[in-house]
């Protein structure tokens, strides 16, 4: 017989009380772990979805503004490109150190060319990348599926008086209109969008690239580092983060994280209170025997040790089972909250067990101290 065994035996004697005390911890920690795990997964899901929503880095040729004039007479200015981007640059971009953070690198090629007798801007983009590069586009008809098809911006469709199924002719070549974009309010509204190879052939510029759009995975948003590495790989290019996109994503994720922390904190506070009250009641009931133990020579430290072992056992068992239940609950409900690939988040579970133990032991301090300070006679009288 030692203090630990005495505590363990007492738990078995008061099974219902032990279960009730443990239930408070179980529910508190279970809810905390479920919420923390779910919000962590949801945060990741939101992050992934935001990352999929367009690019956050733009790569254009480095240009210089030249002012044109003679003496005091100004004739405006022009931009002079120091170098041009080429298809080969894509390989260089994929060769940077943080290449695993690059979700997509999409080359765009722009040119002004004839379209059924009207001079319009043609935008070439790999047909397979359009959905990823412009996920917000809404199309009447269908997207480009193969070479020889075009999408018309809403204004271009009006100017050409063409719709899905129509034909646009350029350089003696006919392109089928696969679909028409809904108005976007952007420059695309006046453009003809086609597969990259088609636009390059219309312009007679095979391998030409006007700019690259890069979608970098924004977890922890190391965009500046990625920008610097791409800049190093393409010294003739101007690489810039689309700051608004980066900041808004960070803000959205931070907001979600704060919500998760706030809800978890409230649940934890309520759980903590439950633990405190139940442990307090349990220890209070336990004080009846403390007089006897004091009378037979238990020191205060031994009484404290006994009570801490009791709540320690309960806290460990119930917080561990609560954490497991919380993880299971999070896994079960995660798909209903937009998490496509639910996973086991061990950090919230471990934190939950630690918090459960902490709350249980913390809740024991005031009643245990009172019990230890109780006069043996007073305690014995209550028996």
């Amino acid at each position, binding site marked *: 017989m030692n203090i630990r065994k005495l505590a363990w035996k007492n738990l078995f004697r008061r099974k219902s009380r032990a279960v009730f005390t443990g239930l408070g911890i179980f529910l508190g920690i279970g809810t905390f772990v479920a919420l923390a795990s779910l919000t962590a997964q949801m945060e990741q899901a939101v992050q992934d979805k935001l990352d999929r929503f367009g690019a956050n880095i733009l790569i254009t040729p480095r240009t210089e503004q030249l002012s044109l004039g003679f003496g005091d007479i100004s004739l405006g200015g022009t931009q002079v490109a120091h170098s041009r981007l080429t298809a080969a640059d894509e390989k260089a971009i994929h060769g940077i150190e943080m290449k695993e953070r690059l979700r997509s690198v999409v080359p765009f090629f722009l040119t002004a060319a004839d379209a059924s007798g009207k001079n319009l801007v043609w935008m070439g983009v790999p047909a397979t990348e359009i959905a990823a590069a412009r996920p917000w586009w809404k199309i009447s008809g269908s997207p480009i599926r193969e070479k020889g098809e075009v999408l018309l911006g809403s204004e271009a469709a009006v100017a050409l008086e063409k719709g899905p199924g129509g034909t646009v002719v350029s350089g003696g070549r006919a392109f089928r209109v696969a679909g028409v974009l809904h108005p976007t309010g952007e420059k695309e509204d006046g453009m003809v969008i086609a597969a990259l190879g088609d636009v390059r052939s219309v312009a007679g510029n095979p391998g030409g690239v006007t700019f690259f759009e890069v979608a970098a995975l924004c977890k922890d948003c190391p965009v500046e580092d990625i920008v610097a590495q791409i800049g190093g790989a393409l010294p003739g290019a101007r690489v810039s983060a689309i700051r608004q996109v980066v900041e808004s994503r960070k803000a959205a994720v931070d907001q979600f994280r704060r919500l998760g922390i706030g809800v978890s904190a409230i649940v934890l506070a309520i759980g903590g209170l439950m633990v405190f009250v139940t442990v307090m009641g349990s220890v209070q009931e336990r004080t009846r025997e403390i007089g006897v133990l004091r*009378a037979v020579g*238990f020191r205060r430290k031994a009484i404290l*040790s006994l009570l801490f072992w009791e709540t320690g056992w309960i806290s460990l068992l119930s917080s561990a089972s609560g954490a497991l239940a919380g993880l299971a609950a999070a896994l079960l409900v995660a798909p209903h909250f937009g998490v496509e690939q639910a996973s086991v988040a061990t950090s919230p579970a471990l934190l939950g067990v630690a918090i459960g133990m902490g709350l249980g032991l913390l809740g024991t301090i005031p009643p245990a101290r009172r019990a230890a300070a109780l006069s043996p006679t007073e305690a014995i009288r209550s028996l």
Partner: protein
Amino acid sequence: MDAFIRLENVTMLYGNNGTSAVALREVSFSVGAGEYVAITGESGAGKSTLLAILGGLQVPSSGAVLMKGVDLSSLPADGLADFRRETIGFIFQAYHLLPYLTARENVMVPMSPLRTSAREKAGRADTLLASVGLSGKEERLPSELSGGECQRVAIARALVHDPPVLLADEPTGNLDSSTGEQILDLFSGLHKSGKTVLMVTHNRANLFRATRSIRLQDGKVAEDDPLMAPRQAL
């Protein structure tokens, strides 16, 4: 006989805010080593309070209690606990056994904080249970034992540290006369083995076994008769 226990003007007041009740009034007496003292008195005379003060369970409002030359009021709470463990064995009227522990485990409880091996503790408990006639009942819970057997377990528990002093508060109060006699036989045996016994009792038969009787009345020592005077004492 040298004083083993000495009370000097012990007064105990209960209550506060001006509504105090006096449990003991300037009680003074000495007890020599190996004495068997029966403490008697009517209900409310202060017997149990006296026993609690003697055992260091309660601190008197004034006065001093010296045991083996140690002033109990000078000891801190843990010092008193150590002193109780080493010097005093308590036996209560209601046994106060822990209901979820077997007889053996109940006897082992006072040894719980010690670092002695479990086998050694169990061996000591079994020896003591055998000495009070409970061989073969070591594994029984208090609910499976009779009142007399429970009190025997409580006596074995009180003896676990081999204390020189036994304080018993109405140890036969919950027992029938025949079982009570058996318990008193045990006390007589312990007294003969050299223990100092102080017993609060209403049991007339017990007064004949004691070597001294102290009668309390209204918190004062009304009689202190080493020659025994059971009729007056009751």
